[in-house]
């Protein structure tokens, strides 16, 4: 089936099988391997991307369901001139990652949280991260990074 969608600002058309998962489409067809597949069972959040500006788990969507949509993956979050998104910057400042496997999903979810809930407190952010799992950091740096970006968003 032919689908046309916009990924990180670029509109493209591809012929895909109905059962192809969106995560596999991004990684295998478009070679956008920043989107990770950690569990494939909708638990870990490593595969989170933005679909029409909302965080979704791309391992639990069919590519055909994204026909006509606007997608942003971790590769498209920074500006074209290389300026990092405030959440990416904050992850660097607060040491929000160790091995980095969960990081694309954490950053994409973080950006979604900051957009929806500027100025969110720690408890809110911890609840908002219920669908993202990190095996390394113990979450402290991740939560601090998102809190920082979130308070910046409120101030601006």
């Amino acid at each position, binding site marked *: 089936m032919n689908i046309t969608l916009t990924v990180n600002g670029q509109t493209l058309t591809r012929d895909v099988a*109905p059962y192809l998962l969106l995560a596999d489409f991004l990684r295998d067809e478009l070679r956008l391997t920043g989107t990770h597949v950690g569990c494939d069972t909708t638990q870990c959040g490593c595969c989170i991307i933005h679909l029409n500006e909302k965080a979704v*788990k791309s391992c639990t969507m069919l590519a055909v369901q994204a026909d006509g949509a606007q997608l942003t993956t971790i590769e498209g979050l920074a500006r074209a001139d290389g300026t990092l998104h405030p959440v990416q910057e904050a992850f660097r400042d607060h040491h929000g990652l160790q091995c980095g496997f969960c990081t694309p999903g954490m950053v994409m979810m973080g950006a*979604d949280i900051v957009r929806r809930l500027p100025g969110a407190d720690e408890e809110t952010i911890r609840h908002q991260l219920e*669908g993202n799992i990190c095996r390394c950091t113990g979450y402290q740096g991740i939560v601090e990074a998102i809190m920082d970006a979130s308070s910046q968003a409120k101030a601006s």
Partner: protein
Amino acid sequence: MQAFTYHRPTDLTEVVKILADCEDPKLLAGGMTLLPTLKQRLAAPSDLIDLARIQNLHGICEDKSEIVIGAMTCHADVAASALVRAFCPALADLAGQIGDPAVRHRGTIGGSVANADPAADYPAAVLGLNAIIETNQRRIKADDFFTDLFETALEPGEIITALRFPRPHKAQYQKFRHPASGYAVVGVMVAQFAGATRLAITGAGPNAFRPAALEEALTRSFTAKALEGLQLDPDELLSDMHASAAYRAHVALVLAQRAVGLIA
């Protein structure tokens, strides 16, 4: 995942036709339950019928004294709806406690109610708030809808189009959330209507249910104290690796008392 034919109709007449023409079709809403089921090969439908492009299944509106939520409305939209919050804050709170934000951006009220997972949250709202389940064929009362574990009154090929909620005087939802999955180990919706109190429990039994003794006690006296000494029969409840039936019976009563305490 096994191969299937994908359909994307734009109106219900088309859906009904595709349903009739296909060997083993399945409706696809948010896919948050169905796609994991297909990945595990617990189901292998011949055809998937995606309801996403049917415009009149989306959205929330007020109709006289009721709020009408289209079947394809996602949990995040219900949680964020000013209309729902003004009408029944407990319903918005419940929607905001389902799964995680990414799941709430895709999962729908129609899919959740049709699926009738014993641990799902919406069944407590549908039953506790005395909602009507609208389908492409008829209107079903909440009391007649949830019949058993993953079983509902829906006929094969029947499509939920909307959920219709009357306005309660006051309502509260209390949930004991499974720390890993987010689903309700037990969830209790308490709602006050003119002359009667409704109390629905999800997570504890094979399907959401209303314990008559608890409702009668609250209708007589709407206080947390009125529930003291009452018990749910553990023989009718679920036992699994997460919680025994006796534990669920106890938690349900505690949550019911908390909900009443927050309203009274």
